[in-house]
Each structure stands twice: as C-alpha cells, then as structure tokens.
C-alpha cells in the first residue's frame, strides 16, 4: 500500500478526476445514469459512486464506459491531449462567442475520438 498522507490524497483526487471526467462525458451526451447502467451492466448506484470518486472503477468497467461514451480510455485517465487538428481548428475559429467556440471545438474533438474508437473496434 502507499505510504504517507500526500500520495493517498493524491490518489483520491485522481479517482475524483476520473469520476468527474466520466460524469462530464455522460452529461455531454445526455445519458442518464440508469441508461448507462442498463447498457453496461454496472449497477446505477455504482455508476453514481464512480462518478463521485468514492468507488474505484476496474479496467473492464472503464473500457465499457469508454466504449459507450465513444471516448478513448486515456481521456478519462487524463492522459489525452487535444488533437493537433482540433488545436488548428481552434486557431481558425475566432469570431464566435467563447461558449459557442467551446461547444464547436468540444464537438470536433468528440468526433475525432469517436472516429478513433470506431477504427479500433475489433473486426469480426
């Protein structure tokens, strides 16, 4: 087990961040926790606890959620940088309100993640 209060607190906040990213992706797509539970087999209360950072998510659960939300697993782990193409689009899109611009770029990034997820799907 880890030693020292700092790394324990650090790890807690990592679970919190992971949960927050999962909740934000779910809310972005407008999926209810119950819908996610029905689709993944993860109980709704567990989905809620994972999003609040009070329950750990195992790798199979994370893969199921990532697949449902059409984001790469690395995104939820905080390892994903915005794609260079989306950064280029951001530079080109300057005459929008901040929120409009944020929505357009977020959607463009989501489309890219979703395309990558499609390409990585196992072929049967």
């Amino acid at each position: 087990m880890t030693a020292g209060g700092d790394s324990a607190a650090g790890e807690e906040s990592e679970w919190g961040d992971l949960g927050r990213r999962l909740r934000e992706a779910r809310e972005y797509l407008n999926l209810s926790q119950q819908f996610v539970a029905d689709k993944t087999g993860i109980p709704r209360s567990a989905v809620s606890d994972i999003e609040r950072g009070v329950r750990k998510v195992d790798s199979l659960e994370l893969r199921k959620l990532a697949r449902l939300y059409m984001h790469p697993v690395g995104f939820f782990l905080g390892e994903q940088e915005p794609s260079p193409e989306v950064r280029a689009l951001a530079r080109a899109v300057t005459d929008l309100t901040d929120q409009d611009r944020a929505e357009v770029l977020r959607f463009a990034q989501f489309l890219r993640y979703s395309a990558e997820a499609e390409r990585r799907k196992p072929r049967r």
Partner: protein
Amino acid sequence: MTWLEAHRLANLAAAQAHGDLGIDRAAPPVDVYRAIGDAGVVLMWRPMPRQFGAYIAEPGSRPGILINNGLPFAAQRQTAAHELGHHRLRHGTRLDADLDAPAARRGLWTPEEKAAEAFGAWFLMPRKAVMAGLAVLGLDRPRAPEDVYRLSLLLGTPYLATVRHLPNLRLASQPVVAAWARTSPAAIKAALDPATKPESRRADVWLIGTGFAGVNLTVRPGDRLVIPSAGHSEPVHDCPSWLRLLPAASRSARRSRPETGPAPAVLEVPATAIGMTGRVAVANLADTGREQPLEFSVKVEGRPNGIARRWIS
C-alpha cells in the same frame, strides 16, 4: 451565385438526398434527424448562445452536425437541413451563426451558404410534402398568412422560411409573399385562439379541420389544439387524459369579439406529457356536414439534448 442558381442546384441535390436517404416526400414532416443519421453523420444538440449550427467534416475524423437546442423547434429542423446541405454538397467544415438574417444580409451570403440554405428549404419542403400539407388544410394553395402558418406546422418548418419558399413552388407571387412575411406568427396565433393568453411565445396553435382525419401531429409542451364547435357544446369526443381541456368559462370571458354559438374547444399540451402519444376524436366540425367523429393522433416531443441516440451502442 444567384439565389435562382442556388435553388436549381439545391432542388436537384435535395431530390437526390430524398432518394438516397429513403424519405417519403408525400408524408410530411420530413424526418431530417433520421436522414442525418442515415447519411452517416453524427448529430448532437447542445445549448449555445449565438450559433445556429455547425457542420464538422475534418480529414481523419468523422462528419458531425451540431445544433443549438435553444432555438425554436422548427428553426432547429431548418438548421439541421441546412447543415445536411453542407454535407451533401461536400462543403467541408462550416460554422453557421446567422441563419435568421434579414433578406439584405442573405443576399451577401457565399455561394456555399446560399446552396445549403436552398437545400434546406427543398429538403424540408419538396412540392409533394407541401401539397400533402395543403390537402390536410383543404387548400390547393395558401390564400392568407394563417394558411401558411398552419402549413408550416404540418411541415415542421419556420413560418418565415415557409413563406419565402412559396414562390419557388409557384404557390404565391413575390409581392404577396413580401406582405405575408411582414405578418407575425404571434398575431396569427392570437387570431386563431383569441380566448387564451399564451404562457409561451413559442407555443403553437393547431386549428383542426376535417382534413386532419388520420393525421399524426407532432406537438410540443404549451401547444394548443383548437377544435371548432360546429354548434355543439362539447366537440371533443375522446382524448388522452394527459391533454388538458381548457375551461370554457374562462375562454368565453376573454373572447375579443362577441360570437354566436359555443366557443371552440381548446386542448393544451402540458409539459408533463413529453413522450406521450394518443388519439383524439372530435365530432361534427364546423362547415363540414360530417356526422362521423374525426380522429387524429398526437405525439408530444420535448427539447432534444445531447447525442442522437442511434449513435449510442
């Protein structure tokens, strides 16, 4: 590119799209959201302060259409059809901020914007769909702004866009259309149901007539169905329990001018009815001579949000 050229191009492109995407042009409203999905384009609704919509088509990614779900429902559909136009016409990423521009500004649009806008009109309002809508109203052409408003509800299109499209279909002349364009939908709605003070400016008023037999209406919370009485005190035979029959007494008290005979029955769609469907049966509508009850169905839709569900697996 002139608007005439844009419309020629778009008319053809929209007809091809109808064919490719399996749209039945004779059965309005055209299901533009399903068509976008069938075209392989990811559809997302999000609240946005100013944007109407966006079409994203970046190399190495997948195409998507983003729609501002704060717009009125018909404007969301029009925006979706406009963005589908960018996709079908292979325009590449487009961000559309001002699709409601006045005529003078629209005249300055780029060729791509004109083509997409014309595509949107022809996609949602092909001749067959418009004639089917007019048939429900018992008309061969609109004769007044009220006819265009009622037609726009059946087509699921904004009033102004419907007015503007009439000359393209040779259903009204430009001078007539210019006058109709100056009539506000709010004034038309108030005239259709003068007895009710609307809670929402966006809510629509559906005046029911004999041609509505067998029709499926897509309604939204706050919408009202006005059923003429034809001399009967209770013209509504049967309706779902979730439709609210507005009290007759308060309606009569608010009538703006004295009328003979019972007031029309008004059914209101409550916010709690989102997702509900049901059948309405009404009797002996005015000026019809029909003795049999007339039946039509209603489906209540709410504000779309997030990703179109077909993309979730």
